[in-house]
């Protein structure tokens, strides 16, 4: 875990509410794995107060990228930053996806809903470098929520898109699209990130098909490195069910360990 208070923004792209920042931070870049995240300080003042978590979208030797959607004040301010500005970032944090050699020669699926696509670009490259055949399922409300479609295609990934309004690709939920397509092939593993209802649907599908699945979970985070106990989810561990800090033990968990419906008070 590295604190880089002077990470320079060296590139920026924007599609409506979605932004991509390339950030120069060689020390974080060299250690980063797909599924890990960084905590970004939005301002040196006290509002917004806490750092915000973002998945590592991509990296090379010197730089990392984050891809985000404006959802509030923090992401709003971050979207205003320009090339040349510096950011205070902490990372790489958490435990990422298992994208190793065991998947060589196998079919694997990565499903992303909306901004949940963020960690899957890095993951897709890693999977391909280990010789896995990756199919990307990318869903959103409308075509405007699929800004990375072209980039995945240009990089030669097999892409399956869906939109709720039918403005692009399959009309309906990405989980329904996946379920339909799973009649024709049987992936060795599914990786998923997106809104919780989407992930819950995918958990049902992968369970009934007995397909090992990894999910990247989200929570409000106070610190990102295990000090506040603020980011817990219900997780099964060694046959024991409890609140687990997702910044430390996640954010990626195996589907069978996640208890989706949290006890209603």
């Amino acid at each position, binding site marked *: 875990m590295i*604190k880089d208070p002077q990470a320079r923004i060296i590139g920026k792209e924007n599609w409506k509410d979605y932004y991509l920042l390339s950030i120069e931070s060689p020390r974080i870049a060299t250690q980063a794995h797909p599924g890990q995240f960084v905590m970004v300080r939005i301002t040196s003042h006290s509002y917004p107060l806490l750092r915000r978590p973002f998945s590592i979208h991509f990296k090379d030797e010197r730089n990392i990228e984050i891809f985000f959607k404006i959802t509030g004040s923090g992401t709003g301010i971050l979207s205003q930053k320009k090339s040349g500005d510096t950011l205070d970032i902490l990372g790489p944090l958490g435990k990422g996806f298992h994208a190793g050699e065991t998947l060589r020669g196998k079919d694997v699926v990565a499903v992303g809903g909306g901004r949940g696509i963020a960690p899957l670009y890095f993951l897709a490259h890693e999977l391909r470098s280990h010789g896995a055949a990756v199919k990307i399922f990318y869903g959103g409300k409308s075509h405007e929520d699929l800004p990375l479609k072209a980039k995945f295609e240009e990089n030669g990934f097999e892409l399956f898109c869906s939109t709720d309004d039918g403005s692009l690709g399959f009309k309906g939920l990405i989980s329904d699209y996946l379920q339909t397509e799973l009649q024709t092939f049987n992936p060795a593993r599914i990786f998923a990130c997106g809104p919780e209802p989407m992930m819950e649907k995918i958990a049902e599908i992968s369970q009934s098909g007995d397909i090992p699945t990894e999910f990247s979970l989200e929570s409000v985070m106070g610190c990102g490195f295990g000090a506040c106990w603020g980011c817990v989810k219900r997780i099964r561990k060694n046959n024991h069910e409890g609140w687990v800090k997702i910044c430390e033990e996640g954010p990626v968990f195996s589907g069978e360990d996640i208890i989706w419906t949290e006890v209603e008070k």
Partner: protein
Amino acid sequence: MTDLTIDLGFIKLKNPVIAASGTFGYGLEFAPFFDLSKLGGFVVKGLYFSPRPGNPPPRLVETPSGLINAIGLPGVGVRRFADEILPQLRKIKTAIIVNVCGENEEEYASVVEFLDKEEGISAYELNISCPNVEKDGLCPALDSEATFSVVSLVKKTSSRPVITKLSPNVTDIVEIALSAQEAGADALSLVNTLLAIAVDVEERKPVLGNIFGGLSGPAIKPISLRMVYQVVRRVKIPVIGMGGISSGRDALEYLITGAKAVEIGTANFIDPEASIKIIEELKDYCEENGFERIEDVIGTIKR
């Protein structure tokens, strides 16, 4: 060379900067960022006798310049703390303070009794803001008699100094401070978080799983500082001030007001090196203003 040491009477600190309970994990979470022995001390996460799961999420919500938490004091309990964590903390050359919790008076005493057998703890900080399960969730910190009673009991049990941590959610903080002093507290620390809620207007329900939470961060500093101002004038024992400190200047406001030391809370989340920067800023202030010793700054507030 500025002398940053502080003598609390019962312990000497390298400097007046202590990391606050619940915001510094068990300390080890911060070891990747800096050498923990540079701190004046740190207070570990609140410990009950047995392990506890804590509250259902969401546990945190951010508000303007503040943070409301309803973590619910999850923890490993005294046994695992003593077996697995304390041995690692003993190697760190700084004051290690254990934040002691209890669901009733007896539990506070049993935590202290258990830990008294273990080496490497400098002092206890009694978190008397824990809800008492037997008394309708009322915490001792809200009542001067309950405060007196739990502090006296713990003092009888403990061979170590006892810092009593006060709650701001009272009408008259001085009254509670005086009871803790009378019961034998060696020092006071103030304040814990301010009782607060936040409402989700789309869902029209409280944001936090626990409904209520505690507000901390820069938003509370004027209030916590006011309480420190009121208390230092009336008690003889040392006061450790906290609430919204994120810079050396914030810390100085408390020291000048009369706090002998400060605790840094929420700021640790935003900048894990916050405490270290604050120590540096205190040193700079002393040098720039001709103070040879930080002790000479304490309580110098003019009327």
